[in-house]
């Protein structure tokens, strides 16, 4: 109860920061939107022609958007890590630590704020996708599943980003390490190309890294096609990464603050 009230207070604090300094929201949305425009307009036809034979007759924008949605969630990781690190560097967090409140509420507030921001940016990017011609075939059940997976993956990536932010010593450090989540993993997955079209070494990595089953599941739900074991893998990765990120963050936050 205490923890929930305090976390809600901290969430309001973070939302106030976001509303007052919306540059964070814009920065988070910009990368996936640019990728969307770049790949649909610039490379779209070429890629569609190249892989069209293997994947059948399809619009590349329909293939692209589901992966870009995950990239949108992941692009929030950098902001989350930077925010948590700069917050830790400010004296206010030390004040919170000496107050009779739930210890982790300041972190939980950040996580809830980031997840809300992620959901908002996903909706915006989805809107841009629609404007570019994305036409999903999902029914109500599929949409509910998409929302559920989006929220779960948001929690997973956000908790990992929080841990990376806490582990970093400086704000600069906190802006670098989450690039693995926001940039590296989306590129070596099926975001832009199907597995068969990837070079063999990368294909092996892409097949077994967590983003691929998540993207394949989102894709299957939104535009149809087989999901198979990817559904369970996606949910499993989501839960596993959330738990790992949470435990890691908690351990890091419980440490004595650095001098």
């Amino acid at each position, binding site marked *: 109860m205490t923890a929930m009230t305090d976390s809600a207070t901290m969430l309001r604090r973070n939302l106030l920061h976001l509303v007052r300094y919306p540059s964070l929201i814009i920065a988070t949305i910009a990368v996936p939107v640019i990728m969307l425009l770049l790949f649909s307009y610039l490379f779209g036809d070429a890629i569609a022609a190249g892989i069209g034979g293997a994947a059948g007759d399809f619009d590349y924008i329909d293939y692209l958007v589901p992966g870009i949605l995950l990239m949108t969630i992941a692009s929030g990781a950098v902001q989350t890590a930077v925010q948590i690190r700069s917050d830790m560097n*400010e004296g206010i967090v030390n004040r919170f630590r000496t107050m009779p409140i739930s210890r982790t509420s300041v972190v939980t507030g950040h996580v809830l704020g980031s997840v809300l921001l992620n959901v908002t940016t996903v909706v915006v990017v989805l809107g841009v996708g629609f404007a570019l011609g994305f036409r999903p075939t999902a029914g109500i059940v599929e949409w509910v599943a998409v929302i559920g997976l989006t929220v779960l993956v948001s929690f997973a990536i956000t908790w990992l980003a929080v841990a990376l932010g806490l582990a970093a010593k400086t704000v600069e450090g906190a802006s670098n390490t989450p690039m693995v989540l926001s940039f590296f993993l989306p590129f070596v997955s099926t975001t832009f190309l199907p597995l068969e079209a990837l070079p063999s070494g990368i294909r092996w990595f892409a097949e077994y890294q967590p983003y691929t089953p998540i993207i394949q599941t989102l894709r299957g739900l939104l535009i149809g096609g087989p999901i198979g074991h990817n559904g369970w893998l996606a949910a499993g990765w989501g839960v596993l990464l959330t738990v790992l990120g949470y435990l890691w963050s908690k351990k890091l936050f419980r440490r004595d603050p650095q001098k």
Partner: protein
Amino acid sequence: MTTAIGVTGLRKSFGEHVVLDGIDLHVPTGTVFSLLGPNGAGKTTAVQILSTLITADAGTITVGGHDLATNPHGVREAIGVTGQFSAVDRLLTGEENLRLMGELYRLPREENRRRAATLLEQFDLVEAGKKPAATYSGGMTRRLDLAMTLVGEPRVIFLDEPTTGLDPRSRHAMWDIIRELVAGGVTIFLTTQYLEEADQLADRIAVLDHGHIVAEGTAAELKRRIPGGHVQLHFTDVRELDTAARILGNASRDLESLTLTVPNDGSRRALKALLDRLDDASIETESLTVHTPDLDDVFFALTGHKTDDQKVVTR
């Protein structure tokens, strides 16, 4: 008299570096206790441990009647902390900062609004209350910081170097605020590197050096132990200096700079007596400087070595 803060055998090391090496403290409720020492003496570490921010390696500590090791939450309910590094949310306005504290202390909405307004008034921040704290001056930030500490009406307040880096006017304003708090009955644990500040505010002073308490007592008691007061007489001529040295007897000569150092507490009467003796002997002095005991003297007297940090402010 009940004990607000009791510390026995407090130890803390960071790696190989021993910061606090067996500290014992006793602060009665409703008094001001000052921990005096130069940068790096361990003052901030002591405050961080007593305020539950970091953990001690050894020692028993009670604050506000609660054992710090077994009931940190109880301690947190009793205390407020204002450190030398601002603990305000710079992105929020002054008023929002105060109300954030109120929400965390579970104040009812209306009472929270009222208390924030009262504190803004009391700390001369009414105008600034609507502006983000990032735009505040050092003195304003420190006042907001302390106001935030008071939202929870703490019974024990830790002030870690509350005036370091403030201009003289802000410093005196802060002293007035602290005196008002004391009048209200709270216990204050104050760290400072200024002897004058401890002198102005504290009932008892402990001098911390390299993790040890080297002296403890009232300001008057400590000053009696410091023989640092002296007057320096500057001469233009060696013969005048020698004559003066002969007449004054108890003086040390520095032939290179042509100065004579004479013990003197700097009071009007003592100075007049000194000048009269020089006049009687018709000795011309070029100039004279009065040196009252400062932190360096305290340290030299109590520890036999100078403060490590030569930048320490000796005002």
